[in-house]
């Protein structure tokens, strides 16, 4: 933040005039692009009333609303299951027991490496062949939980590591057991730190429910496709409306994230550590976690001990 404000001198009168000219050119360019796009849309009649009329019909509104509810339902179930799997996975990944650690690492490695789409496709193929004939929601949630529990486990691990080891060591030194230190000292602080990153995980889960489209599970994206198959003239319009609906849900989650960040900002150390959580994941705030190993700041600071 700070550096980007200093990339140029405070402008003098000449520079201010130049900046104003460039800004005006920028605005004109943007307006021209918008007008060109608008003209293109208008020329193919996308603003005609008959293409939008269908969305005023209460049946259509209900249809889309049900789709949104289906999306949120799938996201809610996936979030609860994935998060409650992620915590034990992360703890197992950090465990002192070799086999537990290796197993957790293998699970996390496997399901993060595979695209969610592939996972869902084969969930739909494999589970029925094993005699599990579920509702489409079940397959979607199953695939999502496999993938996102692994993703979120890495978020939790990054959060625990970013807390630093002093807290755990202090707890051990006053006579707590390993698990007591984890439950009463490390986790409460770490969970608070990783809250923004967890909100980003929820956002990723909400957006990934759109993959239910291929199962097919009757979620929001699928519904927009169905509207356009029975009212082909309204294809762009239904896509636009559904995009706005996704955008609304995402904007709520992003606002929640910002609110949490602001609330926690009164201790600057917490902010640094919060950023540390996502830096440990190898990215910038809000970025989905990649395959790369979670950086271990503790290990980096103390290379030879332990």
């Amino acid at each position, binding site marked *: 933040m700070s*550096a980007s404000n*200093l990339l140029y001198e405070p402008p003098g009168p000449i520079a201010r005039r130049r900046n104003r000219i460039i800004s005006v050119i920028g605005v004109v360019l943007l307006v021209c692009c918008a007008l060109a796009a608008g003209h293109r849309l208008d020329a193919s009649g996308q603003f005609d009333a008959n293409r939008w009329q269908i969305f005023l019909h209460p049946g259509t509104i209900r249809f889309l609303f049900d789709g949104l509810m289906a999306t949120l339902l799938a996201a809610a179930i996936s979030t609860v299951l994935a998060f409650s799997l992620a915590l034990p996975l992360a703890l197992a990944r950090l465990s002192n027991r070799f086999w537990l650690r290796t197993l957790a690492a293998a699970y996390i490695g496997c399901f993060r490496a595979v695209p969610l789409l592939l996972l869902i496709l084969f969930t739909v193929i494999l589970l029925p062949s094993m005699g599990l004939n579920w509702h489409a929601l079940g397959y979607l949630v199953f695939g999502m939980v496999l993938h996102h529990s692994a993703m979120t486990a890495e978020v939790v691990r990054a959060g625990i590591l970013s807390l630093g080891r002093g807290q755990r060591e202090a707890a051990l030194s006053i006579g707590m057991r390993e698990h007591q230190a984890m439950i009463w000292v490390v986790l409460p602080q770490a969970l608070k730190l990783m809250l923004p990153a967890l909100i980003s995980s929820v956002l990723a889960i909400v957006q990934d429910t759109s993959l239910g489209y291929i199962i097919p599970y009757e979620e929001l994206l699928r519904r927009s496709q169905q509207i356009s198959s029975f009212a082909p003239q309204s294809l762009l319009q239904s896509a636009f409306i559904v*995009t706005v609906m*996704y955008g609304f849900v995402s904007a709520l989650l992003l606002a929640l994230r910002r609110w949490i960040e602001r609330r926690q900002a009164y201790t600057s150390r917490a902010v640094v550590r919060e950023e540390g959580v996502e830096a440990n994941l190898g990215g910038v705030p809000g970025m989905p976690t990649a*395959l790369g190993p979670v950086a271990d700041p503790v290990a980096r600071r103390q290379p030879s001990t332990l």
Partner: protein
Amino acid sequence: MSYIERFLGGIAVSVELTLLSFAIAIVLGLLLAIMRVSPWPPFRWFASAYVEVMRMMPLLALLLLFTFGLPKLGFIYSLFTSTVLVLGLYSAAWICEVVRAGINTVAIGQIEAARSIGMRFDQILGEVVLPQAMQSVIGPLGNLFIIQIKASAIGAAIGVADITYTAQKINFDTALAIPTFLGAMAAYFLLTLPSGLFFRFLEQKMAVLR
């Protein structure tokens, strides 16, 4: 045609998707990042609006909008091209964020020194800030590349013959779901592991410059 050969064909398509779209994303993302730190408000607004909008949209929704929506306006692309474009446009937003975070890691003294010898915005950015920002950008960039490999599977949803699509087709032909799934998984590992190692190598090489 043997199944291995079909998988190799799928791997080739996935690699093409990833490389082409990542190239688009890097160019566009860099442009957006420069816009975001520029002294001209309209460019800053445009770049941050772009990033926000991309963050709020599911990738698949964008892809379907491109493949089914744009032909209605007279833009007709092949499925492959539209997948590349969508992946590129989508991850450009993240590359912008990564580059911006990288710019923020450059020590303020560097920028102040550049300002004090009278460098302009473009000189400061191009000759002082960006070269140094590269060091801290390369790690997250590698992670974005791996995410891109996985995201390229989205092409399978509209029928681009990448690894995921090939696996699905092979499964229809053979009904051997578990070996096919493991094969597809191995194919993705084949792509992600070397690229992870490559970017780690790059990162180490850059770190020496410091």
